[in-house]
């Protein structure tokens, strides 16, 4: 919200800046090194040579949330884990995105019980949901591409909000 009124209508300039920034952001969305369950295995193989996430500038998994842009929630989130996930998300610096990988993270999946958070979007905002149990690396990459699409669509006015 805050940016456009301050800058006024700068048409060409803002759109070009938007494009440049979004391009840069899609090129280096560093994920948080973080896995919760079986989905994390697929996530690891997505990172490995066969699929090679480095092609999307994502080879660098950061162990510190402060240096990460993207949280891939890979696996079922137990109620006990939920505050931790939330804290990690809060510690990430803006701009930040979340991919909910697999059924369990997205909606609890087969674990419809008291111990599992029925969808990680109960605790953090999710940008992209990836279906699959667990999703194949292709499916995760499709999710990442969907996220890129979403990032490319972001407006300058959204940044500061």
């Amino acid at each position, binding site marked *: 919200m805050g940016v456009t009124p301050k800058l006024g209508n700068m048409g060409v300039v803002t759109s070009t800046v938007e494009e440049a920034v979004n391009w840069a952001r899609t090129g280096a969305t560093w994920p948080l090194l973080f896995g919760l369950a079986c989905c994390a295995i697929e996530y690891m193989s997505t990172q490995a*040579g066969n*699929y090679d996430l480095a092609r999307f500038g994502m080879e660098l998994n950061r162990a510190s949330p402060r240096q990460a842009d993207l949280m891939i929630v890979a696996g079922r989130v137990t109620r006990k884990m939920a505050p931790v996930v939330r804290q990690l998300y809060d510690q990430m610096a803006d701009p930040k995105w979340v991919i909910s990988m697999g059924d369990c993270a997205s909606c609890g999946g087969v674990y419809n019980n008291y111990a599992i958070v029925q969808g990680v*979007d109960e605790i953090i905002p999710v940008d992209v*949901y990836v279906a699959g149990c667990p999703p194949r690396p292709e499916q995760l990459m499709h999710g990442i591409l969907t996220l890129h699409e979403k990032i490319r669509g972001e407006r300058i006015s959204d940044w500061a909000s």
Partner: protein
Amino acid sequence: MNIIKGFATTFKHLREESITLQYPEQVRPFQERFKGRHHLRRYDNGLEKCIGCSLCSAACPADAIWVEAAENNDEQRFSPGERYAKTYEINMLRCIFCGYCEDACPTQAIELGHEHQMSFTDRRDSIFTKEMLIDAVPEGGQPTPQKVEAGAFDRAIPDMPDPK
């Protein structure tokens, strides 16, 4: 000496072809048995194979399928049986692609295909409706609902493999 040995290995591998799959331009061929997105099949004459029996939803371990049935009549016939699925929805975010629905189906109406590229920015998009799941009407077939002759289909569950 060791350093030469080490670099020799490196250079050897440099000459090798890259194993990296260039997704999404390249897609790895799937096993025939791979279970991806579901399809609702039609008979050659365009009628839907699904008879709305809900056995898939009963078999589903993740409660991902929702079926509401209604009755066919000869004026508006969707399936050759007595009933058809008025609503057929699968929540792709719940589905674990186990294929139990395929096993449970008495008419082989539901089959799991190879499409796997399913990611959504809104979770509401993950609910695939009957219109999204059902195959296109095959050549020579009629779209449903069809108007058929009275008494042409008198079985509760079609026993013909492919009714004309």
